């Protein structure tokens, strides 16, 4: 197991480097001069050149990447001239807020999805199955930002149940939990839908396996049989859960923007609309890295609980 863990971590390193190269390249193809905001309009070409030299922009791309990556490793992601803050400072605050939102959404979505998928899979063809399949199709097809607006309109506008804007934990737990409800519902819907679908398929699949017959034949209660089935069906669900959390992290851009939840998504949105490139670059990098690490953790957890996965890898 230890060897597997080390192996997996080593495999993640090239991915991490690749991700940082892609983020760096994307931001360096952005049209327009990065120094444009720093020089006056009447600057002479020589002055522009001086600024470019000072910022290291006259260096070739690989060298610029190297400098950028080395300072990123030291926790320095640049300075937002627009906000007059270190990008890493901005991200530190935002990361925590996004983490809370994504974690709550993931737990809620995956738990509910498991439950619905289990109910549908064990009652195949019955009413429950149909309702769950319609519900999960809807959840799969509804854009999170549309669901967010619907929830805002009904639960916040008409019924006045929840606040429309995000309040963080700095303003007290009660308010924060209240303002978490709508973002979690809108973000977790797709997680729930996909988890329910995958769980249902896995349960149906496992139920047709021979060992179920054996369990029944040895006189195990139906509940006992179902527990065995659930344990065997959990692996494909885990496989998708990594991707699900990634979708929540990415989707946070939309959900956080609508509910003004001060996380990385809102930070990225504001940075894009104000063309604050340093922040766009830093935020994209941190979200992508978080996703890679989560996938790594999911892989390891899966290997820990499922001997088949462990065998396939080592």
């Amino acid at each position, binding site marked *: 197991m230890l060897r597997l863990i080390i192996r997996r971590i080593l495999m993640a390193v090239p991915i991490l480097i690749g991700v940082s190269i892609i983020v760096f390249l994307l931001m360096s193809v952005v049209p327009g001069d990065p120094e444009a905001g720093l020089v006056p309009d009447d600057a002479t070409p020589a002055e522009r050149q001086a600024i470019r030299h000072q910022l290291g922009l006259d260096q070739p791309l690989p060298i610029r990447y190297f400098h950028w990556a080395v300072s990123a490793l030291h926790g320095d992601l640049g300075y937002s001239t627009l906000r007059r803050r270190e990008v890493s400072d901005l991200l530190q605050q935002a990361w925590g807020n996004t983490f809370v939102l994504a974690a709550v959404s993931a737990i809620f979505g995956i738990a509910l999805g498991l439950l619905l998928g289990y109910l549908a899979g064990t009652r195949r063809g019955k009413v429950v199955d149909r309702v769950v399949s319609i519900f999960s199709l809807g959840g799969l097809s509804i854009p999170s930002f549309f669901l967010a*607006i619907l929830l805002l*309109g009904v639960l916040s506008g008409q019924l006045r149940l929840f606040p429309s804007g995000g309040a963080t934990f700095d303003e007290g737990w009660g308010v924060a939990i209240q303002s978490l409800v709508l973002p979690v519902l809108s973000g977790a819907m797709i997680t729930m839908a996909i988890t329910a679908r995958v769980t249902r398929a896995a349960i149906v699949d496992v139920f047709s396996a021979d060992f179920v017959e054996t369990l029944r034949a040895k006189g195990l209660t139906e509940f006992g049989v179902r527990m065995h089935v659930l344990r065997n069906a959990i692996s494909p669900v885990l496989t998708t859960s990594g991707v699900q959390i990634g979708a929540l992290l990415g989707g946070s851009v939309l959900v956080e923007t609508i509910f003004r939840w001060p996380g990385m998504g809102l930070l990225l949105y504001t940075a*894009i609309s104000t063309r604050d490139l340093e922040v766009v670059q830093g935020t*994209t990098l941190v979200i*992508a890295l978080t996703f890679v690490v989560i996938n790594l953790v999911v892989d390891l957890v899966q290997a820990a609980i499922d001997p088949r996965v462990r065998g396939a890898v080592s």
Partner: protein
Amino acid sequence: MTETFVPPLLPKSFGGGVDPVSRAAAERRKEEWNAAVESVKAQSFWIETGKRFLRNRTGVVAAAIVVALALSAIFAPLISPYDPLIGQPVDRLKDIGTPGHILGTDEQGRDMLSRILFGGRLSLLAGFVPTVAAAVIGTLIGVIAGMVRGVVGTVLMRFMDMLYAFPAILLAIAVGSALGPGLTNTIIAVTIVYIPPVARVAQSSTRRVVVQEFIEAARLSGASRARIAWSQILPNVLNDIIVYASGLVGVAMIIAASLSFLGLGSAPPAPEWGYMLNSLRGELFTTPLVTIVPGFFIFLTSVAFNLASDALREAMDSRL
């Protein structure tokens, strides 16, 4: 003589000879062969799939909705009651059902129905074009990576893994914000997001096919790699890719709408549904029904695509 379909690796000649008896026998063999080919064609995979698809009522309804949306988008200039870009500020924010404006008007007094019809063009383009483009490019990459072991295959797939390491919507946002707003850039962004997953599907299918005996046979018959890829591997991996890609159209549309919701998609005043939803967001508490119209259409289109894709998967899966 009419040309009949003869699979390329089978003999074109059916024997024969100088004497009438053996010539007649050869002729008979040929007719039997053609009849067999015809009967196989009659129950060919695609016809069977089509039949099975038509038996699925949900799938047919979904496909009909897709066709209706496509037609209304294509003929938008003919059926739109108003210009989608010019509004009457006096008539702003009329509710749904106002005479003359069935779907109401937006915050600048533009007719919502006309904007929805024209917006359908952008949304459907943004759903279809990236899916098709990514299916073609991803298949190319996946088949190459699946056939060519060693450095080339590994490098290709590791590069795909790196793109795959981004959450889909984040990659689209990053590419979109690097390229700038506009429909073309949105399409490029979504295509880039979709290439890695398609390539993975194509690669794993290719590796399943490439070890089979008929590939060995084709290789022994002297076929070049390109020819094997085109005539032996591609037909065998295409089903997997079609099933997979058909499920992507709805999501592509949602990603594109998300980009324009964030101001990275089609530039205003183009009536893109996602952008419309965002610009009407401020009116949610005054005219809630008008506000949700664009979102409803995104939802409807995406449901229709997903249902049609599910039906297609079922119809194609039940092969014998």
